[in-house]
């Protein structure tokens, strides 16, 4: 059921990131077509395609665009979230480095759909190479009239700017990103109002992930019906990039239809687990997704199926963990990350992530106490759904799930005062 590459066409193509190569692949035909369409018909097409946000939440893209008010006195903006920072996620980087024009075209079409004249790509600061490639792509597109004052001779004005972040995970949260883009501290905002009404520079804004926007030119060129035909589940359409890491023979980014089977992805596509070991856990959607146990991995990789299992597709970052790994140590790595990345404005997150990290560290070091696990679960309870953004949930959800699903390992740590797997993992 592996389809033709759509988002990864340019991978491995010599000079694939250049405008000339993109044009050879039929580039900017979507923009040309969109220029002849009305804004409403563009949004309708995207709505019909069933495209859902690839950043993690899976919100219907066309619906999000339709929330932008039409008669608003302020200018409108399109912002691309290229602050790919979730541990385990490295799929947007592929698009940014291999096919940047696909993203620019998607953003230009998004601009047309709401009447925006400017777009911003907020790129993670560590993506130095991607930033260089993007900036070159923007220059090329401006030079050849795909961006600028007269887009493809239509008289319309669309410009796109590349903005580099400074490495904070929280700036990947949409409103944190908008604050950071405007030059403020990356503190997520209270919602409502949502970015569709009060977004970049307090103006109506479309904010999408790189992969979401990269799908748009294909939807416009080949039609919504073609897009919905990909994948077995009508509510989860199109292809999805999966960033597979951990204990598999062939880790990497794979483009597969939505709803592809997780077990097949690990065993067939990625070549299975090396060294004759077996799977202990699979994190299906980046570090904030609760893990799946080996008996749970025969599932379809789509938003709804995974949500029903209490985890999430997230950004499609599949982390495979084999039986050589200590779950306590793994959980502590997660808490350390979130304690370090919490922006600090909400009390439950600022204090909770750090508290969890301290307890996890204590257990990992062999100083766990009876009652620690109940305390962890209760702290997680207080952190879920109680803060402005979901970073707090993103820490509490996996921690809670790891403790619940691998409780015996945590208990062994506490009762023995050391890691029962000591000597078997590095």
């Amino acid at each position, binding site marked *: 059921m592996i389809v033709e590459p759509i988002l990864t066409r340019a991978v491995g193509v010599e000079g694939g990131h250049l405008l000339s190569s993109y044009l050879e692949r039929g580039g900017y035909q979507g923009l040309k077509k969109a220029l002849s369409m009305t804004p409403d018909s563009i949004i309708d097409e995207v709505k019909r395609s069933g495209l859902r946000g690839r950043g993690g939440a899976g919100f219907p893209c066309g619906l999000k665009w339709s929330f932008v008010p039409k008669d608003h006195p302020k200018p409108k903006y399109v912002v691309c979230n290229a602050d790919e920072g979730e541990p385990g996620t490295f799929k947007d980087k592929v698009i940014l480095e291999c096919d940047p024009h696909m993203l620019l075209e998607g953003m230009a079409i998004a601009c047309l759909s709401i009447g925006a004249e400017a777009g911003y790509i907020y790129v993670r600061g560590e993506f130095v190479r991607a930033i260089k490639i993007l900036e070159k792509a923007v220059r090329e597109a401006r030079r050849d009239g795909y961006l600028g004052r007269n887009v493809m001779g239509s008289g319309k004005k669309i410009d796109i700017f590349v903005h580099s972040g400074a490495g*904070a995970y*929280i700036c990947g949260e949409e409103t944190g990103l908008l604050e950071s883009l405007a030059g403020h*501290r990356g503190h997520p905002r*209270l919602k409502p109002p949502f970015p569709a009404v009060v977004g970049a520079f307090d103006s109506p804004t479309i904010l999408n992930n790189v992969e979401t926007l990269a799908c748009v030119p294909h939807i416009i060129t080949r039609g919504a019906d073609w897009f919905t035909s990909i994948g077995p589940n009508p509510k989860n359409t199109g292809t999805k990039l999966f960033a597979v890491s951990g204990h598999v023979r062939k880790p990497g980014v794979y483009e597969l239809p939505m709803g592809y089977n997780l077990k097949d992805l690990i065993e067939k596509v990625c070549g299975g687990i090396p060294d004759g070991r077996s799977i202990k856990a699979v994190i299906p959607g980046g570090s904030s997704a609760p893990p799946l146990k080996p008996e749970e991995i025969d599932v379809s990789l789509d938003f709804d199926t995974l949500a029903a299992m209490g985890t999430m597709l997230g950004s499609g970052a599949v982390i495979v963990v084999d039986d050589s790994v200590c779950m306590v140590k793994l959980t502590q790595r997660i808490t350390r990350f979130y*304690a*370090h*990345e*919490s*922006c*600090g*404005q*909400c*009390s*439950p997150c*600022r*204090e*909770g*992530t*750090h*508290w969890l990290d*301290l*307890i996890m560290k*204590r257990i990992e070091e062999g100083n766990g106490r009876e009652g620690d696990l109940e*305390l962890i679960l*209760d*702290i997680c*309870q*207080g952190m879920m*759904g*109680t*803060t*402005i953004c979901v970073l707090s949930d993103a820490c509490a959800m996996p921690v809670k799930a790891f403790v619940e699903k691998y409780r015996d390992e945590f208990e062994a740590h506490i009762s023995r005062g050391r890691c029962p797997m000591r000597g078997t993992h590095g």
Partner: protein
Amino acid sequence: MVKLTMDGRDVEVREGLNLIEAARSVGIEIPYFCYHPGLRVVGQCRICLVEIEGIPKLQAACATPVREGMVVFTDNDRVRKLRSQVMEFLLINHPLDCPICDQAGECDLQDFCEAHSFPKSRYTEAKRVNPKLERRKIGPHVFQNMNRCIHCSRCIRFCEEIAGTGELTFAERGYKMVIDTHDGRPLENPWSACTADICPVGALTVYDFRFHERSWNLTSTPSICPHCGNGCAIRLEHRSGSVKRFLPAANPLINHHWLCDFGRFSYDWMNGGDIFEPMQGGEPVPWTDALKEIAGKLSSDNRTVAVITPFQSCEEMALLKTIADTVMIRRAPGEERKIKNEQGHWMVSHNAGPNTQGAAALGISLFDAYPADARVLFLSENLFPAPLTEEEVRSIPSDAFVIAETRHRGPLAKRADIVLPGHLFHEKEGTYLNDHRILQHVRPSIQPAAGTRGLLSYGSEILAGMGKECPGPAAEAIFQTIEAFQGLTYADLPSRLEKIRG
């Protein structure tokens, strides 16, 4: 008005209110730390989360406006559980050094903790400390102890939104996040001490007040700040007859919730003074003798001139006008003082006293020089910022009989034939018309010093001694004789908000 249900009660509240204010208006308390009615809503502390029917997640009451038909639970099991968890989060790294903390007794964290008796903390790890930020002066008036901070960001928002100077900022991130000044520059805007007022804990305290008094030992009375023509609402806090501090009180028309550092820290003169009984020729005399002497002087045909200050109330001015032939007011120019009102407009005053406009409304002219034919002079110097200087006293005509109202053994008291220790601003009742023509009624804050008498009281006795009719000594009776305020009574000025047409 909007109708909604709160904790099972059908209530009606003003449109546009957030849930905290709506609940407050019907007598339900929702706890909060980061919310402040004068500042932008940020919803960070999460203690005000409430349950709203139809919304799965708990919602921040500060950031949720009331809607018709809303069903809100501010105190059900789910909300209480969450609150106790947020309290636990806030307390795990709080030093709990209440016994040595200046904020104790007026600390939101302490109050809320006491009111809801949270169980023992389950936190057993080391508490966070900020060695560099735990005992330092961050400006001329504000002292910081970062260990106590609960990161509510009120102080940051005050500097950005009200002062407009933005000295404070968050630095670092997450559990390491601290409040710091930009580039280490001091917090020295003209309202800097307000950051300590609005700090819900003892992280920012007023340096000048540090370790001086425990808040529960102070008596707090509503008053106005007399140090410029704005007349900001204050709480005047005192102990054993001595003024200890000014705190801002709310008055949306003038100062909203704020007070400038100048007004706040200029009260020292209220605790000064060393004359507590009338004096004649340098010797103490009983009040009756001194007043009899004065009444005799005034009954004869001598021209009497009173020179007063903008610290006199409208009632005192009105009474003096019936006693003296001419009443003049000493100029008291001040530096520009500004305060932001609820609308965000600057209220500006260039006068040093609270009642310059009151004198104008009563038709009292400005003092330039003593009239040549003045035989009896009534001079008041119970004023701020300074008593009369040697030079000013020398300009008093040498043949005039001088009655001085003063508590200060200075040049004027030495020159005066009779010295009357009157009442100071905070010891007397009266009305004051501010520079924006807002009339405010002020009650005495403290018991006047023993042996002293107010102008209304001894002035009425002088009038009686002269055989004239007197409406006093009750302040309100005199107030009702003032033409400019015709038709008003004190009951009309309960919230000190009456605006007099200019």
